[in-house]
């Protein structure tokens, strides 16, 4: 792509001096970028001093301390540079109706509900805070919310660049919500005061876990049927080919025999009966295609992680006692408010936890009675992988993900683990760990040039690069 030299000269920016603005529209598209950092956070705990990152065609092509810019590369400089943050628990960009939809099914796809024109100012604020991508999710409070997608929040990206992973995780809830406020209802012609209910009863919640296992088993059966059908189809096709070959071999002879039989019959004055060809093998019946079952099959086979929003001890116990029999399923537990006692078990089964980092006051939903910001620290200390999500139903919370992560440090979480919770581990639980979360060769170029050390109060993004394009620059609000 040809770009005038003069433009590049103007675009050579040094973060510490007054920078040239990239104009009112974001996403100046350049093929090549070179980012120079005093401190390059490759991944949490690994910092290179005076290093560079070379980007081309949306990917990171080189990371080192002596890189030269590729021909035509735009150069950007900063004190701190790190991977863009990912909010694995966000409602940004998805309309409230879709977020709150309780009629979702496993096949409901959140990427369909992501609106690139919704919450634009909030997305810009989130970008300025260093968040580059979120898990878009419909049906958040539903028992089965559907398939969540990993979506880049920057405006101005092509549709193909916007969605990192369309089918990222299946979101389900166990024992969440269900509390009904009391109220007056009209029953049998009379106004009756109905009592409120506190939430799902414990046996109901445990039954939901059983149902989840049942659905996974059904998914596995569907997968088995599909595979069997695939085998049988191949077998049938083989037989058809063999028979066709056989018939073709005898075709000439068969034709002569038939002509002879026809003439004989004519001579004898008898009616000619065609020899009927009977196939002694049938085409196998295809199993009914079921979108929902397809999703459960993917989950059962470990192709797609299953993210379960689950908080209370009773259902956590029920879940953990059943995971051993579900060897291929990749579990992620979200919320996990009462999981400290189960930390060892979670670690043993390699189950990561996505914590809800928003503090809660009195009047919190009952499943979050034991909500404690120290949870992340307890789990991390026990060796459990912890991802950190803003967790709120308000799309504005995503912007403050870095402050929320910092707050968890204030409640005992190690600083590198807090950063990992919003980068590498967040990417991992959303199944995009190979493409996002750290600054490594081959990964997508989603990174942030920070004004101060990441996760400090003063740290904001001076530049944000997403899918290899500069989507935010200084003085661009």
């Amino acid at each position, binding site marked *: 792509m040809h770009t005038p030299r003069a433009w590049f000269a103007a675009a050579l920016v040094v973060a510490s001096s007054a920078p040239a603005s990239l104009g009112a529209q974001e996403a100046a598209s350049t093929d090549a970028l070179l980012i120079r950092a005093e401190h390059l956070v490759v991944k949490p705990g690994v910092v290179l001093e005076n290093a560079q990152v070379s980007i081309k065609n949306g990917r990171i092509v080189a990371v080192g301390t002596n890189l030269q810019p590729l021909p035509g590369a735009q150069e950007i400089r900063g004190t701190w540079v790190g991977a863009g943050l990912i909010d694995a628990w966000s409602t940004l960009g998805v309309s409230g109706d879709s977020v709150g939809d309780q009629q979702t099914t496993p096949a409901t796809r959140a990427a369909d509900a992501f609106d690139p024109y919704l919450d634009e*100012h909030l997305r810009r*604020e989130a970008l300025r805070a260093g968040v580059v991508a979120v898990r878009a999710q419909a049906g958040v409070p539903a028992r089965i919310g559907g398939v969540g997608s990993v979506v880049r929040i920057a405006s101005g990206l092509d549709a193909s660049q916007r969605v990192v992973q369309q089918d990222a995780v299946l979101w389900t809830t166990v024992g969440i919500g269900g509390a009904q406020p009391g109220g007056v209802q009209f029953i049998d012609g009379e106004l009756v005061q109905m009592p409120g209910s506190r939430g799902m009863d414990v046996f109901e919640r445990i039954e939901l876990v059983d149902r989840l296992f049942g659905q996974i088993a059904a998914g596995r059966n569907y997968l088995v049927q599909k595979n069997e059908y695939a085998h049988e189809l191949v077998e049938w096709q083989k037989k058809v080919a063999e028979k066709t070959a056989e018939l073709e071999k005898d075709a000439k002879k068969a034709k002569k025999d038939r002509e002879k039989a026809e003439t004989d019959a004519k001579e004898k004055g008898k009616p000619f009966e065609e020899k009927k060809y009977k196939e002694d093998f049938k085409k196998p019946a295809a199993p009914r295609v079921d979108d929902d079952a397809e999703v459960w099959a993917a989950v059962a086979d470990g192709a797609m992680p299953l993210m379960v929003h689950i908080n209370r001890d009773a259902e956590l116990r029920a879940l953990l006692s059943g995971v051993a029999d579900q060897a291929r399923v990749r579990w992620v537990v979200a919320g996990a408010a009462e999981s400290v006692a189960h930390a060892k078990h979670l670690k043993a089964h390699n189950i990561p936890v996505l914590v809800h980092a*928003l*503090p*809660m*006051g*009195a*009047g919190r939903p009952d499943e979050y009675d034991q909500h404690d*910001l120290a949870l992340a620290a307890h789990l991390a200390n026990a060796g459990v992988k912890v991802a950190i999500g*803003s967790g*709120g139903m*308000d799309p*504005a*919370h995503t*912007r*403050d993900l870095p*402050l*929320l992560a*910092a*707050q968890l*440090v*204030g*409640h*005992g979480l190690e*600083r590198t683990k*807090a950063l990992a919770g919003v980068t590498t581990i967040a990417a991992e639980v959303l199944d995009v760990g190979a493409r996002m979360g750290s600054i490594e060769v081959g990964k997508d170029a989603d990174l942030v040039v920070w004004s101060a050390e990441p*996760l*400090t*109060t*003063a740290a*904001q993004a001076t530049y944000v690069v997403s899918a290899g394009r500069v989507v935010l620059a200084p003085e661009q609000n």
Partner: protein
Amino acid sequence: MIIAAIMTVALLGGGDVALRADKVWVDGATAIDKGIVLVRDGRVADVGANVEVPQDVQLIECQGHLTAGLVALRAQIGLDGEGVDAARAILPEAKIADAVRRDDPEFARLRAQGITAVVLAPTATKLVPGSTAVAKTTGAMVSDRAHLTVVFGGSALAFNREPTSYARQTEMLAELFDNGPKGAVSDAKNGRLPILWEVQSKPEVRRALEFATARKLGGALCGAPLAGELAEEIAAAKLAVIVPASGAGEPMREAQSVALLAKKGVTFGFGLDAPSNPAQNLRMVAALSLRHGVEHGKALNALTKDAAAIAGMGARAGSVARGMDADLVLWSGDPLELSSAAKAVWVEGALVHGGAQ
């Protein structure tokens, strides 16, 4: 001399102690590196870089920053939904202090976040719901009558009693203040009792300003997130502002409005509204204001010195200075970094949180 990574247990209840911390913040503007704070009889006896520590007092080396305890302006702790009195709109002699349950567990949660004092306010559902109280987060009452709450907000309006409209609201308040005010209202009029003006929207702020200016009344405007957009008028009226502590997701316009207050020199602090609002949000809202242009020192003062002044306890708390109550917090790092934790909290010299081996 041992630099303890975690502090040793300080003597409880009246024990004298000297604390040396990496940084001692006298107030938002003044920090002393390797400062020493000498605590005697529950008060700060001395503070400086070279304080002489008497023989009988243990010098404890602390890693971190020492500040005055945080002051939360407006909370409803220990009130259990008190304040839904629908019958009467005007109760100037009522005192919220009489309704507070002093052993509410929420106080402990506040202490864990470095908050040592809190203004307890009646809910703004009546025209004049009564007086606020100031308490230390140990439950001890500092003042059972710190402000007279006057509600200019729509929350005071009801359908089944007066006032039912803004016009009547203003009229009733004028009658109260202008026609032979008595008791608490008289004290408020004479400047002996500061007024807590409960407002929410900008028009309500303007109405309150007009009312206050016409009668030369003082106090603090409480509850309007965008009050800063009227900062000049507020500064002219010499009123302070209590900004609601919203927390993560605070609209940018609200954070910018706090920066405007700072810019125009209006004294401000943050109202917590615990227990429905978690204690963590007090520092969260201060950190958010920092990201939108408020200077570090100003933000720290809003949590300590200026808040104490608004609470009417500026003479005894809010800064680490001689004669002040020893309400102190040892933070693991800069207090405005949310990654810093309150490692130890003292109220009047007694260790009330953390500090254990």
